[in-house]
């Protein structure tokens, strides 16, 4: 089952105005993460419904972003890697002021507490990215599909 990709974002008149600041919203975050590749299948997280715009909550004024992702199966061994890829994409794309919360959609994974705890620990995330093999895998997930 492959989910249909959302179309291009329609540009509003307000957004066209260069004088007015555009706040970062749910759609913008979703646009950043939807094309992340699944580590195992030749499909994006959007196509697998692992990420959905409705599970992205952004508050620009408070500098918070929360992303819920749904592993394809409850015992998916790639859950931590997928979560890490989402987190890394956001870290690399957003201003440093943002607090990023990436966690598993409640009730959709056998080890969600353990995975969420790892993703929330900035030392663990930093240490994971110092592992050159893991970093390479993450970068592959984040690279544009050829």
């Amino acid at each position, binding site marked *: 089952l492959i989910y249909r990709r959302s179309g291009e974002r329609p540009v509003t008149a307000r957004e066209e105005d260069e004088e007015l600041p555009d706040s970062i919203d749910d759609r913008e975050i979703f646009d950043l993460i939807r094309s992340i590749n699944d580590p195992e299948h030749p499909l994006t997280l959007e196509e697998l419904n692992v990420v959905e715009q409705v599970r992205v909550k952004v508050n620009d004024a408070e500098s918070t972003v929360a992303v819920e992702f749904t592993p394809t199966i409850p015992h998916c061994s790639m859950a931590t890697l997928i979560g890490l890829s989402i987190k890394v994409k956001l870290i690399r794309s957003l201003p*440093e*002021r943002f*607090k990023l919360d990436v966690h598993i959609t409640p009730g959709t994974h056998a080890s969600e507490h353990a995975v969420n*705890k790892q993703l*929330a*620990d*900035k*030392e*663990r995330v930093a*240490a994971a990215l110092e592992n050159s093999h893991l970093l390479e895998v993450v970068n592959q997930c984040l690279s544009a599909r050829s």
Partner: protein
Amino acid sequence: RDKSVWVWEVDEEEEYECVSVLNSHTQDVKHVVWHPNQELLASASYDDTVKLYQEEEDDWVCCATLEGHESTVWSVAFDRSGERLASCSDDKTVRIWRRYEPGNEEGVSCIGNDPTWKCVCTLSGYHSRTIYDVSWCHLTGALATACGDDAIRVFEESTSSNPHQPTFALAAHVPRAHSQDVNCVAWNPKEPGLLASCSDDGEIAFWKYQRPEIC
């Protein structure tokens, strides 16, 4: 990150040598701190516990495990007397623990001859994100915290506080102390009210704190 705690000693050549490797924690160890005046060591871990260690018959052993936090404990601090310990956690609380000796009057049960540590106070509802560090001023008794919400907070113990059920009030709160997570806070050991902090934003800040009148 290898889950171990190492104890080092200075030898005759003034070099540090490792005298013990302790593998009591089941996950990463985030912080270690010495008791202010005894040979007692405390450690904080991703396994949600605080552990205490002392030397028994020439060997370092884990003599107590403090359970209660619901997530990673990032740091611990002893008060000036060393009878109390403060711990801070990813569960957004600070816990105050007190040591009870065997045969204590409060009826806190101990195992054998070892003292027991009991959580006598939990500060919750003040921090909105992970608390990365706690520092207990040995001059004034004030408690400072470093939080992932970019804020620094100072708590003071109420003067009418019952030592076995202490109450702490929020005495100061700087919401944007830094522009990113505050990782560490430290009270100056000589000058009351002088506090240093550091952050993911790359800055170190110095603060002057004064206890408010109503506390």
